[in-house]
């Protein structure tokens, strides 16, 4: 039995918004693989919960009328990995969330929960930053859309306005972000399953038509700071540069200008700085190959 003060079950998005306005102290629960564990630990014990888990309208991946990839916030990790739209346009997201926890966790865990937690280690977060995802929030005044970098305020805190009754309803990947773009994600952990990233790195590139020049390169990290972050110095090195081994060597150390990892029991700052460079290099190399480029 969980130590829950009260459970309110939302029947629709509008109902969820109304419940949130009615019970401003209540915690939203989606898949519950974090919230229920935190209740068990005592950290969130005795709280009121608003469950949105049964809202099937928030599940699934589609392409909307503006050609955004629209991922419903309750879409589970395993459904994202298996989804044909994801596999075609942003395969790296499916690969990244396929490294969360275990198969059972990937069946219950949702992309909305992964982002709303506001943790820097979330396996989806670096890829969503690197692809400039847009977060859709629905509240009493309708829909608000914000870039994911603005959604993350600080460790564990995201821009969801409880006083506006907001819940996250979707994550969008704009067409300009995914067209002709290919990426790669590396998670560094001590073991493969049931592990939280010591560092996560996600890179994607769009090459010129002749595949010899990098049109656009984006790189983001998880656990390189209190929130997921891009590495603009490294991106500046790569943007417009010719594809070459020299570029890889110039690009990867530039990330050190941007990242600011901490010492924790999982890994030291120095170690994270060290592997960040190598992960950037390998991710860029793999992204270029996936985009059809040849590094020689």
């Amino acid at each position, binding site marked *: 039995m969980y130590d829950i003060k009260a*459970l309110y079950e939302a029947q629709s998005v509008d109902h969820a918004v109304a419940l949130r306005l009615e019970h401003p102290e209540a915690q939203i*629960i989606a898949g519950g693989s974090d919230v229920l564990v935190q209740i068990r630990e005592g950290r969130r014990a005795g709280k009121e919960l608003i469950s949105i888990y*049964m809202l099937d309208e928030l599940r699934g991946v589609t392409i909307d009328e503006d050609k955004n990839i629209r991922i419903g916030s309750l879409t589970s990790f395993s459904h994202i990995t298996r989804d044909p739209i994801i596999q075609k346009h942003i395969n790296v997201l499916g690969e990244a969330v396929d490294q969360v*926890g*275990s198969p059972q966790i990937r069946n219950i865990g949702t992309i909305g929960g992964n982002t709303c937690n506001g943790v820097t280690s979330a396996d989806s977060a670096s890829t969503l930053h690197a692809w400039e995802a847009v977060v859709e929030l629905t509240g009493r005044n309708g829909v608000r859309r914000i870039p994911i970098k603005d959604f993350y305020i600080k460790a564990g805190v995201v821009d969801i306005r409880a006083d506006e009754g907001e819940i996250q309803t979707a994550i969008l990947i704009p067409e300009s972000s995914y067209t002709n773009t290919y990426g790669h994600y590396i998670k560094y952990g001590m073991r493969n399953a049931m592990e939280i990233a010591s560092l996560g790195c996600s890179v994607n590139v769009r090459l010129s038509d002749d595949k010899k020049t990098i049109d656009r390169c984006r790189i983001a990290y998880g656990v390189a700071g209190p929130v997921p972050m891009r590495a603009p110095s490294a991106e500046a090195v790569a943007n417009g540069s010719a594809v070459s081994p020299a570029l890889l060597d110039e690009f990867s150390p530039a990330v050190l200008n941007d990242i600011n990892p901490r010492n924790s029991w999982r890994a030291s700052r120095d170690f994270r700085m060290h592997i960040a460079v190598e992960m950037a290099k390998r991710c860029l190399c793999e992204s270029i190959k996936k985009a059809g480029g040849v590094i020689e």
Partner: protein
Amino acid sequence: MSRYKVIHCNINGKDVERSVDVRASLTDMLRNEYHLTSVKKGCEVGECGACNVLIDGEAFNSCIYLAVWAEGKHILTLEGLAGPNGELSDIQQAFIDETAIQCGFCTPGFIMTAEEILQANTLYTDDELRKLLSGHLCRCTGYENIFRAVKKTMYRRLGKEIDF
């Protein structure tokens, strides 16, 4: 608000309903209301997989799944795998044949994940199979035998020769 709610669902092929405490996990409901004790209480935080059941064909750790979310769902536990007269299913028999059981505590959870894997009708590589089984802890550490039981049954169901 009411502490209790009537939950209608289908468990092991049978439509059932029962009044359930809204604070209950699905593990609590399956064990206490339906006496399905194959659903083990292990870590109770979604790490060990001992409480694993199939919900609409997908594997879930029932310890971190609210009982109220079972409304309208089809739930399969280990008890639902055996035939009407208690005949063992192929995957259960394979666990016996491969001695994939020591203390037995992780077995029901492992077998339900195996069932999800087998229902995919896919010939997985060894690496894929290991990843698919990675949500379970066996503290007797009998992983190799478990792996073999699942792999053999996968090959058998697909009518293929096994290559060990």
